[in-house]
């Protein structure tokens, strides 16, 4: 259980311009959701470009997707879904004053996130080796097939790259949460950072849920 009473925690973490801790939490959540909305629209721009170009060059898209490994993609999907589950459990335990379980679940999330990046690394190095590079670095002579695969891989690297960057940011944030959780910063009265970073992490998962079928599973 927490070492602080809720009132003490409220006093410690409530910023001066809020009247109650509840108001502060609502505001933080609204702010986070607004930020997530901007993330959705940013990725969304890529999805729209990807979808429109798929309509113009369907053959190139199918040819490009044949170079992707759907087993690795599926494994990564499972990793991210599991990490999302452990993240939500971490939020649950943080909100019920179970410190060690919070830390443990944050650790599991971190492990899955690392595993995701390791697999991404394997995929990327494979692609570099085969000349499946974006744009003008695409080695068409080696790969063969429609030339617009260069554009497909442009999208592939941008979408997975920006997503991977978000995973990396998530890793840093979750590691920071672990330190704070271990220090006993969170309790049922105050766990806003776990809650907010949890939302962020689920969004990273949510975007991958769309990326996976779009990139790996077109036929």
């Amino acid at each position, binding site marked *: 259980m927490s070492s602080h009473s809720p009132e003490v925690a409220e006093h410690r973490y409530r910023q001066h311009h809020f009247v109650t801790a509840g108001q502060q*939490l609502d505001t933080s959540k609204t702010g986070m959701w607004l930020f*997530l909305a901007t993330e*959705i*629209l940013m990725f*969304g721009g890529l999805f729209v470009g990807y979808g429109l170009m798929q309509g*113009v060059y369907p053959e190139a898209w199918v040819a490009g997707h044949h170079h992707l490994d759907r087993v690795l993609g*599926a494994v990564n999907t499972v990793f991210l879904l599991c990490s999302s*589950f452990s993240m939500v459990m971490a939020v649950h335990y943080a909100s019920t004053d179970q410190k060690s379980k919070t830390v443990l679940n944050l650790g599991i999330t971190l492990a899955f996130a690392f595993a995701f990046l390791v697999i991404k690394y394997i995929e990327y190095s494979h692609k570099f080796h085969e000349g499946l590079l974006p744009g003008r670095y695409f080695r068409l002579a080696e790969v063969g097939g429609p030339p617009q695969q260069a554009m497909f891989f442009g999208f592939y690297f941008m979408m997975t790259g920006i997503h991977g960057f978000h995973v990396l940011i998530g890793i840093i944030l979750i590691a920071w949460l672990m330190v704070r959780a271990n220090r006993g910063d969170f309790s049922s009265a105050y766990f806003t950072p776990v809650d907010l970073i949890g939302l962020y992490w689920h969004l990273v998962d949510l975007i991958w849920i769309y990326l996976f*079928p779009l990139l790996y599973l*077109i036929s």
Partner: protein
Amino acid sequence: MSEQAHSKSHSPLPYLLTLIALLILTGVTVGASYVDFGSSTVNVIVAMLIATLKASLVALIFMHLRHDKPLNSIIFVSSLIFLGILLGFCMIDVQSRERVYPTGLRQVDPPAGAAKIVPAPAPPAPAHH
């Protein structure tokens, strides 16, 4: 629901069930990609429907939208609506462009600097719109 009470009052069981559902749906979407539904459009639609189902589960349960203030759901949904606007209007344009020649967008010029002025002889152009 302005206090952080909602998380406390729930057992973690729904989270576990959600995870299992998500894993099953992942299997389904991989399996569906091997099935030929007749046209690639149908395949894309099936994949997107499954993805949307998964995304809804994540948003409603993992992200607590089910119990959260409606404002946050409104923000989430409106981001999707505005994305739809971007996609929709771009599609309207790209799909309905007048093709002066059947090649349209896909016509790619040979490298510049060559002595090319106009593609001659000009193919007969359909004069309809």
